[in-house]
């Protein structure tokens, strides 16, 4: 066991401030022994400790059970900063507002299975994916400004989607506080033809079936039942987010030097909340968040369009309602209670998902009574989950839970040890059809390269951070 690490309860560990000189608060890791051991094989704990150095950090540097080594913040990292604290672009990452949305249907597995290959081929031709692919939606500067401020609302105005979609998207479809003037010309340049594109890596569109309902009351409220087909979309802000993060890392790097802020890793560059650097970044961050939500809105349109053509029916008749859209790489101002005191905090979630309980003020009316849907993309060979937010998360993790399975094996090792074509055949034998640009990219995303997502969500439930509502099994996967 690591010096300075002690068990607090079954699923909670504390990394004392003695672990590394300079930590302002302890690290708090939600994990069981096995997941903790996985995290200790790389530099994830070191990164938990590094985040604890940042000025104004409140309560602890937190890590969700899918914790693993990232760059700057660990993946699965959550940290909140008081108003005299900082914001750090490295606490959000390059794929700003990367996230997931889940689209429901009124189709059953038997309706979709027979023609699945054709449906996937149709989606593959409609959804631009992979490296260097341009989208068919062009957004010159004036239009892009609208997307930066309006998010899904702006994309809806362009004719992609319907009004109800906005009610089932975080912030009603647009992040507040966007400042399109705080976005560099380079980010505008990158964003001009990437709206409605999937990208590569771990991003996907997946046709799934609800295999098991685990919390019937909540599943009923969410409109989910066993045997039902759903579609999950996982993508982010594409080149816009990458550029905004790159730009502001440099801005913050200069700020840190000028202000004499000591940080243990240059990727953790930050600036005090309220400073020009921080305010500019927050305004640009909201633009990237809006681009990401808008991107998933456009992707959903192509998915609906593909279903319409395949089933020769309208998407409304097919019941293709959005359950929810949520980001897992984001920083935003939220109200939390710390030691009995209400505080305005800048909460960073780097590979972590908001998990708000019933009654939370940020929830749309549809979820006020039942709590927030938490959508957890798994790897393509196992399962994905729908969870619901909890009151305990508000006390324990600034209203946060995990974001996925979390990687366990490096990409290069996965490529060396797993054959993409064998993997494809194995998945097909399990009833999962995968369409991807390249076998080696497929191998990187193999189930064995990831932690067991079921274990991750079980620990979240054991720690009280969220409750399992439904388990979804992939039927067909579209990879970038």
């Amino acid at each position, binding site marked *: 066991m690591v010096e300075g690490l002690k068990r607090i309860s079954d699923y909670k560990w504390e990394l004392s401030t003695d672990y590394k000189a300079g930590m302002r608060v302890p690290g708090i890791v939600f994990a069981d022994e096995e997941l903790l051991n996985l995290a200790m094989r790389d530099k994830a704990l070191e990164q938990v400790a590094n985040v604890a150095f940042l000025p104004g950090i409140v309560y602890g540097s937190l890590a969700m059970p899918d914790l693993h080594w*990232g*760059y700057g913040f660990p993946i699965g990292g959550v940290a909140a900063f008081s108003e005299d604290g900082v914001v750090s672009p490295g606490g959000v990452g*390059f794929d700003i507002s990367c996230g997931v949305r889940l689209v429901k249907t009124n189709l059953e597995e038997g309706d979709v299975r027979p023609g699945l290959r054709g449906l996937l081929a149709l989606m593959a031709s409609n959804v631009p994916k992979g490296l260097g692919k341009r989208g068919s939606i062009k957004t010159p500067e004036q239009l892009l400004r609208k997307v930066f401020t309006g998010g899904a609302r702006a994309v809806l105005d362009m004719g992609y989607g319907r009004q109800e979609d906005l009610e089932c998207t975080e912030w009603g479809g647009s992040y507040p506080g966007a400042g399109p003037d705080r976005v560099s010309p380079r980010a505008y*340049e*990158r964003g001009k033809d990437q709206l409605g594109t999937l990208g590569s*890596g771990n991003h996907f569109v997946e046709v799934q079936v609800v295999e098991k309902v685990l919390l019937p009351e909540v599943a009923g409220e969410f409109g989910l039942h066993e045997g039902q087909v759903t579609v999950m979309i996982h993508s982010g802000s594409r080149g816009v987010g990458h550029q905004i993060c*790159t730009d502001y890392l440099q801005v913050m790097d200069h700020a840190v030097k000028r202000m004499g802020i000591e940080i243990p890793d240059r990727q953790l560059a930050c600036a005090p909340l309220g400073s020009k650097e921080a305010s500019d970044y927050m305004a640009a961050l909201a633009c990237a968040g809006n681009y990401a939500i808008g991107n998933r809105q456009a992707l959903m349109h192509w998915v609906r369009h593909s279903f319409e053509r395949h089933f020769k029916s309208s998407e409304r008749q097919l019941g293709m309602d959005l359950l929810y859209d949520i980001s897992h790489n984001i920083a935003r101002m939220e109200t939390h209670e710390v030691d009995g005191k209400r505080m305005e905090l800048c909460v960073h979630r780097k590979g972590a998902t908001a998990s708000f309980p019933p009654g939370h003020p940020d929830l749309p009316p549809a979820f006020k009574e039942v709590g927030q849907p938490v959508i957890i993309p798994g790897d393509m060979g196992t399962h994905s989950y729908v969870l619901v937010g909890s009151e305990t998360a508000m006390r324990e993790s600034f209203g946060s839970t995990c974001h996925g399975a979390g990687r366990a094996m*490096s*990409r*290069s090792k996965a490529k060396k040890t797993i054959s993409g074509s064998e993997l494809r055949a194995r998945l097909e034998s399990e009833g999962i059809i995968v369409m991807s640009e390249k076998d080696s990219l497929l191998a990187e995303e193999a189930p064995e390269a990831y932690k067991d997502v079921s274990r991750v969500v079980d620990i979240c439930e054991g720690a009280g951070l969220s409750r399992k509502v439904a388990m979804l099994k992939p039927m067909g996967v579209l990879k970038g």
Partner: protein
Amino acid sequence: MRFKTIEHTADIGIEVEADTLGELFEGTAAAMFSLMVDPETVRKTVERELSLEAGDLEELLFIWLNELLFIVDAEGLLFSGFEVKNVGDSRLLATTSGEKINPERHKFLEEIKAATYHEMTVERQDSGWKARVIFDV
């Protein structure tokens, strides 16, 4: 120039060694592109001049690699030739050559979102230079 990849759970890193600082910058760019696509398949039909400024060598490397990634994304260009004409602590002047992405000939190995500052180093060694970069993929 010699380079090896660094094992990282979620992302990919490189360690590059070269005799001169100029070759080090050329080498890191060549290594980065070799993670994305087979360099043999990228013809040198277009050139770009890059003139970059920074406060120190790490920042210069950060800007250099991210500037190239910007061009890939914004202009759809891939590069296989890198010639550093002048490099110091605060300035880099370089010419790169490559061509437009052609999906028929260019089979992508990996998408690189950005070069990060995490554990980035540029160091002078007994003989030559060494750099370390972790990419977000």
